């Protein structure tokens, strides 16, 4: 029998090689390409490939001009931040509060609990395109079921003013952003629900038993047991809610395309527009970097809050 062969120093690299190869080509290299392109003025085609040599690169280089333009001359891009931020704030508060409330409701031995769990997580597994198109039809101004329901309620209750509530929800500048936010929250709350439920299930039942024996009210039990023990999950959920919502894209494409006007534009639709709409690849990359750094800052602030809350 041969002596147990010592692992060759090359072995781990061989196992890692395929994943690493893809990682370098499709993650690392694009990252540098993104940074470099953000200093160029380039339409993607002409006059030359800027990455051929140093000279062609310098021919396209414009220094920080793209960045200057973002900060000085692109109000729509910043509006898109505010609009995505609005949806994010709604998601952080309404959506996550609902998710937590439902998780607490379902975290007990009640008849029907399993069914609720299955149903609440159904929207998150659907694609944004399907969800968007489905709601596009529900919101339709002429034939949508939402307006039909409003009409029916108006007729049965005799409230004539409800007739004024029948709108083209996604085409009306006043309602479009809210309508999109509602779709997004409808799709997203089940995900937070599942996270919170998993967090709740790690809290030992004995803690609640002991508190009950000591005569603590339901609210006291929530505030002094559930809340502190759930903080880590809350932080993860809120970070991922912010990242996920700020980068909303497919849902917008499937519903409003950013309209009416610019009323539902979000950062990614703007970046996409700069790239394939106006063929300004350099500018699109600079927008991507500004937006990425913003998101990173927000996440880091949230993580700092977590450290303070748990220490």
């Amino acid at each position, binding site marked *: 029998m041969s002596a147990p062969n010592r*692992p060759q120093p090359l*072995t*781990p*690299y061989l*196992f*890692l090689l*395929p*994943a*690493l190869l*893809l*990682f370098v*080509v*499709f*993650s690392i290299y*694009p*990252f540098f*390409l*993104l940074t470099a*392109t953000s200093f160029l003025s380039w339409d993607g085609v002409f006059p030359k490939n800027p990455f051929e040599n140093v000279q062609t690169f310098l021919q396209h280089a414009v220094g920080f001009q793209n960045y200057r333009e973002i900060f000085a001359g692109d109000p729509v891009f910043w509006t898109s931040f505010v609009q995505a931020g609005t949806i994010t704030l709604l998601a952080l508060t309404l959506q996550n509060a*609902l998710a937590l409330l439902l998780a607490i409701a379902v975290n007990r031995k*009640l008849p029907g609990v399993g069914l*609720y769990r*299955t149903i*609440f*997580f159904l929207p998150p*597994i*659907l*694609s*944004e*395109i*399907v969800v968007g*198109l*489905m709601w596009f*039809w529900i919101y339709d101004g*002429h034939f949508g*079921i939402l307006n*039909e329901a409003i009409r029916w309620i108006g007729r049965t209750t005799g409230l004539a003013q409800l007739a004024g509530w029948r709108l083209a929800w996604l085409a009306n500048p006043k309602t479009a952003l809210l309508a999109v936010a509602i779709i997004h929250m*409808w799709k997203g709350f*089940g*995900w937070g629900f*599942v*996270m919170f439920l*998993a*967090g709740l299930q790690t809290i030992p039942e004995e803690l609640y038993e002991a508190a009950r024996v000591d005569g603590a009210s339901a609210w006291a039990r929530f505030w002094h047991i559930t809340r502190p023990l759930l903080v880590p*999950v809350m932080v*993860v*959920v809120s970070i991922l809610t912010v*990242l996920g919502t700020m*980068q909303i*894209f*497919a849902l917008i494409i*499937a519903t409003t395309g950013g309209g009416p006007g610019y009323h539902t534009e979000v950062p990614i639709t703007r*970046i*996409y527009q700069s*790239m394939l709409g106006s063929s300004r690849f350099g500018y699109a*990359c600079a927008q*991507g970097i500004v*937006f*990425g750094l913003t998101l*990173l800052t927000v996440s880091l602030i949230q993580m700092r809050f977590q450290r303070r809350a748990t220490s």
Partner: protein
Amino acid sequence: MSAAAITLWKQRAWRWLELGGWHALCLPVAISCLFPLLWMVSSSLKTQQSVFTDFRLIPLPLHLENYMRAWTQGRFGLYFLNSLFYTFVVVIGVVSLAAMAAYAFSRFTFRGSGWLYKLMLSTMLIPIPGAFVALYILLTRLGLVDQGGGEWLPRLGYLLPQINAGVPFGIFLLKPFFDKVPKELEESAKVDGCGAAGVFWYIMLPLARPALGVVALLTSLSAWNEFLLAYLVFSRHELMPLQRGLLAFHGTHLTEYPLLMAGMVISIVPIVLVYVVMQRYIVQGITAGAVKG
């Protein structure tokens, strides 16, 4: 009534009130989750005329022929098969690459293993929202964008970045599993003449089967629902997956709601079936990161 009976009665009343309260909260939410889906199915069974006027949930007679028309005329059959193919390849790719990489990170110490592991996992948390612009430039340069040439290059351009994007999460789920496999098992296999590849194949993979299943499930969900990359890469209908095809259909046949809805139902049937059967494992995988903290 005795005092004891009154307290008992009170307790029971509270219990019922609590029960009713929670159901009063959950039931409307559950209905609002299901209704849009039911309405989609219902609309898919109406005719081009009745879909605008018939507001019944069960629109008799059911126009099941919409599904045949969506499958053939609407090209959803084509999109469906494409999606099936892409999902299959991405799942195989992610599971095998992530398993091999996780094995390397778990069982070996080598130069750069620490920071390389962190670097790969950091892509899960650090957002690079503009990365798709650079990815598009790169794919164009490599000839992997659909510009009327051969059809396998754009398919590759759609598959490879997706596989790459799925690997870090796969490593994240699999490495702890490999870490738990006792060293003795590995040693005894080596005594029996197994090399590193043998240990990986005969010991690690079979023991990690549940985790591999979770990775495969989550990857298949995200591959089936992928949109942005398909939007960037494909321009020919023959190559499009369902999500891209749905949008293309919506763009060209704006008001043909019954067919669009039938196409949407076709697109969600596999995923809903997988979800209903595999729910536990999906939820397990999704919450793995958050609860571990």
